[in-house]
C-alpha cells in the first residue's frame, strides 16, 4: 500500500464535528482569494453550485462543461425530489433520522461523519433554493409540500412537479450566470477535460479540448474540483445522458487519485423496459410513482392476458408481500432484485418478459384521475410518448436499469482526493451513499457539496499550503498536452471497421450480464477476459471518420469509450474482490436464507480504494476501515 488514506474526520461528537471543523479550518483573507484560481470541471448541481459560491466568496473561478450551456448538465434530468430533514410534516423526522436512514440505506458502507454532515446541511439547501426562486410544490396554505421516497417512513422529499432536478439546476445555473456577468467565473462550454496536470504532487491544472475547434489547451490554477457526474454509461444503456462519462475521473485516477468502491452501482427499479437493439438510452420513471403505483406480476408464469383481465387473486403484489412495512417503497436495490427474481421465474410481462406492472388503477379509484394527473402528469405523458400506451388506462410496464454510481474517486472529509489540491464533488466522488443510495439524496449531496462544503474546505487547503506560482507555460502542461493530442490522433489513425457505438454496446452487455444486478465469481472472471479482448479489438478495429480540428462527436465518444473499457475492468476487479453482498452489490454466493444481501462486516467493513499501478499492472487495493460509533450494524430489513 503506497497511498495514505487519511479520512481527516474531525474529532468530537458526531453532531458537532462539522461546526467544530468549520471553526478550525484556515481562512483565506478576502484580498488573497482573488489571487487564487479554482478550476471547476462540471456545471451540474455539484459543479455549478460550487463555482457560483466560490466566485461569491471572491475566488477567481474557471468552470467547464461539455454541453453548449452549463444549464444542460445531467442534474437537469432528476425528476422526483430532494430530501431535507425539515420535519415540516411533524411526522417524527430529524437530522438524526435522515442520517440513520441514509447510513442504513447504504447498507453500512459509508462514513458516519460525512453522512451526518449531509443530513445537517439538507435544511440549509432548501432555504437557499427557495431564496433563489426554485418553485417547490406548495400546499394551498402557501407552505412547502412533501412526498415520500423509498427507504423512509417519513415524508421529507421536496419537489417541483416531476422536474426537481431541472429547477434546482436552474437555480444554481442562474447564480452561476450572475457570477459570469460579474466576471468572477469564466465559463468554458463545449470544452472537455481530457487530463489532469500534477506538479510536485499537487493538482495544478487541466488540459482540455475545445469541442468546436479541436484546440488542445491548458488551464492552470491553485486547486481543481471535479464535479463531472456519474459513470453509469459504462453499461451503455442507462438513465444517464448520452454524454455522461468517466473521462475526467478516470484520467485523474491514472494520475494518482484512488478510485473507491467502483463496483457500487445503483440499478433503479422503475424504468421503461428496453424495446430494441437500436435503443440509445433508458428512461427513468420517477420513484415518486411508487407513492401511488402498485407493483405486480401475474401469479402464473407465462400468463399473457391483458393485465386488466387478470383478477385480483391471480396477481402477485410482490413488494407488498415481501416487505409489508415498506411495501412499494422498498429501497431501490431491493425492489430491483425482486423484479428480476419474478422475471427469472418466467412471470415477467410485456413482449420480452423483462418487465413488471406499475399499476395506478387503485390510486385513480381512490383519489380520482385529476389528482393523479396533478402529481404525475408529465411522467405519464413521457411514458405515453415513448411507449404509445396510456398509463391512465392500463398499468405501466417497468424494469430495472442502471441509474447511479455510488463509487467514485476517494475523498476525505474535506472532499479532497488522494492527490493534494484535487477535490471531487457530487456523483463523481464516493462519499455519502455507501453501497446503495436512497432516492432524493443525490441532489441533496450535490448541493451540500457545492454550496456549503467545498467553498469552505477549499479555503482550508489554500490557507494551509504554500503553493508555488505556476502558470500554463510550465513544462508539465506541454507534456500533458502532447499526450492528449497523440491519443486523439491515435483514434483517427486506427481506421478499422467498427464504430465506437458498436464497441460501447458490446461492453455494456458484458457489464450488464456479469457485473449488473447480481454477480458471481465465475461470471466476473469471464467478464474480465471478455473486456480485455474487447479492448484489444477496440484499439485495432475502431473506425472514426472526420478530423480532430472540428466538431467531431464520434471522436469525443471514442475517448470516453476507451476510458470505459478500462473502468469496466476495474469495476469487475472490485466486484470480484468483495465477496460479500451489500446494497446494490449482490454476490450470489453471499445471501440470507430468504435471498437478501448478506454482508460480511468482519471482512468487508471498509472502503476499497484502488490505486493505479501502471499500464499492464493490476491495481493496488488500499482499505479505509469504516468505524461505526453511533449506529449499530444490523442486517438491513424492510419487512
Amino acid at each position: 500500500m503506497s497511498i495514505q488514506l487519511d479520512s481527516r474526520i474531525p474529532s468530537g461528537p458526531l453532531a458537532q464535528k462539522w461546526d467544530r471543523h468549520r471553526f478550525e479550518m484556515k481562512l483565506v483573507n478576502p484580498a488573497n482569494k482573488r489571487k487564487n484560481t479554482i478550476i471547476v470541471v462540471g456545471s451540474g448541481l455539484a459543479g455549478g453550485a460550487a463555482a457560483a459560491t466560490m466566485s461569491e466568496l471572491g475566488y477567481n473561478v474557471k468552470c467547464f462543461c461539455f454541453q453548449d450551456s452549463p444549464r444542460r448538465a445531467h442534474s437537469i434530468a432528476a425528476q422526483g425530489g430532494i430530501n431535507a430533514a425539515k420535519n415540516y410534516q411533524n411526522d417524527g423526522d430529524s437530522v438524526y433520522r435522515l442520517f440513520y436512514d441514509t447510513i442504513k440505506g447504504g447498507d453500512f458502507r459509508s462514513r458516519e461523519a460525512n453522512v451526518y454532515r449531509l443530513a445537517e446541511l439538507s435544511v440549509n439547501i432548501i432555504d437557499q433554493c427557495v431564496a433563489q426562486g426554485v418553485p417547490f410544490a406548495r400546499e394551498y396554505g402557501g407552505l412547502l409540500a412533501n412526498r415520500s421516497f423509498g427507504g423512509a417512513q417519513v415524508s421529507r422529499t421536496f419537489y417541483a412537479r416531476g422536474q426537481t432536478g431541472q429547477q434546482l439546476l436552474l437555480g444554481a445555473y442562474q447564480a452561476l450566470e450572475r457570477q459570469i456577468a460579474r466576471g468572477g467565473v469564466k465559463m468554458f462550454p463545449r470544452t472537455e477535460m481530457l487530463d489532469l496536470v500534477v506538479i510536485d504532487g499537487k493538482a495544478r491544472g487541466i488540459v482540455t479540448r475545445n469541442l468546436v475547434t479541436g484546440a488542445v489547451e491548458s488551464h492552470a490554477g491553485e486547486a481543481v474540483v471535479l464535479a463531472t457526474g456519474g459513470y453509469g454509461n459504462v453499461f451503455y444503456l442507462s438513465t444517464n445522458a448520452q454524454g455522461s462519462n468517466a473521462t475526467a475521473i478516470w484520467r485523474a485516477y491514472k494520475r494518482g487519485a484512488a478510485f473507491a468502491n467502483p463496483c457500487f452501482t445503483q440499478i433503479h427499479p422503475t424504468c421503461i423496459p428496453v424495446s430494441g437493439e437500436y435503443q440509445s438510452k433508458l428512461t427513468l420513471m420517477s420513484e415518486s410513482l411508487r407513492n401511488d403505483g402498485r407493483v405486480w406480476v401475474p401469479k402464473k408464469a407465462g400468463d399473457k392476458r391483458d393485465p386488466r383481465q387478470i383478477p385480483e387473486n391471480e396477481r402477485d403484489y410482490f413488494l407488498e408481500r415481501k416487505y409489508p412495512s415498506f411495501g412499494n417503497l422498498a429501497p431501490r436495490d431491493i425492489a430491483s432484485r425482486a423484479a428480476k427474481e419474478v422475471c427469472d421465474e418466467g412471470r415477467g410481462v410485456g413482449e420480452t418478459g423483462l418487465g413488471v406492472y406499475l399499476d395506478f388503477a387503485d390510486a385513480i379509484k381512490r383519489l380520482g384521475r385529476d389528482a393523479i394527473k396533478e402529481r404525475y402528469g408529465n411522467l405519464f405523458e413521457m411514458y405515453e410518448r415513448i411507449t404509445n400506451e396510456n398509463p391512465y388506462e392500463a398499468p405501466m410496464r417497468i424494469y430495472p436499469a442502471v441509474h447511479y454510481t455510488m463509487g467514485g474517486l476517494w475523498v476525505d472529509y474535506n472532499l479532497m482526493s488522494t492527490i493534494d489540491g484535487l477535490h471531487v464533488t457530487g456523483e463523481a466522488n464516493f462519499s455519502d451513499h455507501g453501497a446503495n443510495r436512497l432516492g432524493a439524496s443525490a441532489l441533496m449531496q450535490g448541493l451540500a457539496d457545492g454550496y456549503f462544503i467545498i467553498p469552505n474546505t477549499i479555503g482550508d487547503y489554500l490557507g494551509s499550503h504554500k503553493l508555488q506560482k505556476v502558470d500554463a507555460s510550465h513544462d508539465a502542461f506541454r507534456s500533458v498536452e502532447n499526450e492528449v493530442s497523440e491519443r486523439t490522433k491515435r483514434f483517427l489513425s486506427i481506421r478499422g471497421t467498427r464504430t465506437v457505438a458498436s464497441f460501447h454496446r458490446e461492453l455494456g452487455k458484458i457489464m450488464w450480464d456479469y457485473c449488473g444486478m447480481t454477480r458471481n465469481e465465475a461470471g466476473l472472471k469471464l467478464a474480465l477476459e471478455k473486456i480485455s479482448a474487447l479492448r484489444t479489438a477496440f484499439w485495432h478495429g475502431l473506425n472514426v471518420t472526420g478530423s480532430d480540428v472540428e466538431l467531431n462527436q464520434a471522436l469525443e465518444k471514442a475517448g470516453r469509450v476507451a476510458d470505459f473499457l478500462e473502468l469496466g475492468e476495474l469495476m469487475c476487479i472490485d466486484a470480484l474482490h468483495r465477496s460479500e453482498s451489500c446494497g446494490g452489490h449482490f454476490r450470489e454466493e453471499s445471501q440470507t436464507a430468504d435471498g437478501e444481501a448478506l454482508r460480511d462486516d468482519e471482512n468487508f467493513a471498509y472502503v476499497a480504494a484502488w490505486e493505479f499501478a501502471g499500464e499492464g499492472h493490476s491495481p493496488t487495493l488500499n482499505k479505509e476501515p469504516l468505524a461505526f460509533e453511533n449506529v449499530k450494524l444490523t442486517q438491513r430489513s424492510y419487512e
Partner: protein
Amino acid sequence: MNLTLHVWRQAGPELSGKMVVYKANDISPDMSFLEMLDVVNERLTDNGEVPIAFDHDCREGICGMCGLMINGVAHGPMNGTATCQLHMRSFKDGDTIYIEPWRARAFPVIKDLTVDRSALDRIIQAGGFISAPTGGAQDANAILVPKESVDNAMDAAACIGCGACVAACPNASASLFTAAKVSHLGLLPQGQPERYRRALAMVEQMDLEKFGSCTLHGECQEACPKEISIDTITRMNHDYIRARLIGTRP
C-alpha cells in the same frame, strides 16, 4: 419503414452548406427520431463518410440540447414534444423528411445541424436570476407563497432553453424564452425586488444579441416543447414598460 432524408450538411461555421439526400431503410417505428439518425450515422461511418453532427444529451426532453427543424417545423410534428422524444411512429413508410438546423441570425451554425445558442445564456446573465448569495437565506417556510403563484411560476420555469421559439418565429425573436424567465421569477415574492430591473436588462440584452422583435405571431407557443404560454410575453412587456416608466436602470 423506409425513408428518404434531406439533411443540411455544412462542414463549418464559415463554410456554405447544402441539403444532401440519404436513404434511411429498415427503420423501426419504435425508434426515437435521434435513434433513427444514430442508425444513419452508423451506416455513414461504415461507408467511410463523416456522420451528421447534431446536438443532444439527455434524450428525455429536459436538457434542451436537441433541436431540429423537421419538415420546416421546430421539433417536428408532435405538439409539446422535443426532438429527442419524437418517435418514428409519427411518420409513414416511404416519407420524405427534411432536416435542418435552427435558423436565426443570433444562432450561427457550427456544423451541420448544430448551432451556437450562447446568446440565450447571455440573456440570463443580464438579469435572469434572483440575487441570493449562498448562506444568507431565511427558513424556507418563512414566506408563504400561494399555491397558484407557485404553479404559474412553475409553468414558466419549465422552459428548457432549446431555442425552438426563436427558430419558429418569423422574426427570430427570443421573446418567449426571455418572457418565461421574467415570469417565473416575477411571479414569486422572492423575485419582486429585482422584478423591473430584470425585465429591462433581459429585454435590452435580447436586442443586443440581434434577436428580432416580437409581433405576437404565436408561432413560438406552437413550437415550444414545454407549451410555455404566450401570455408570459404580455407579462414581460408589462414589466418592461413599467420599468421604463419608473426610470429603472439595468
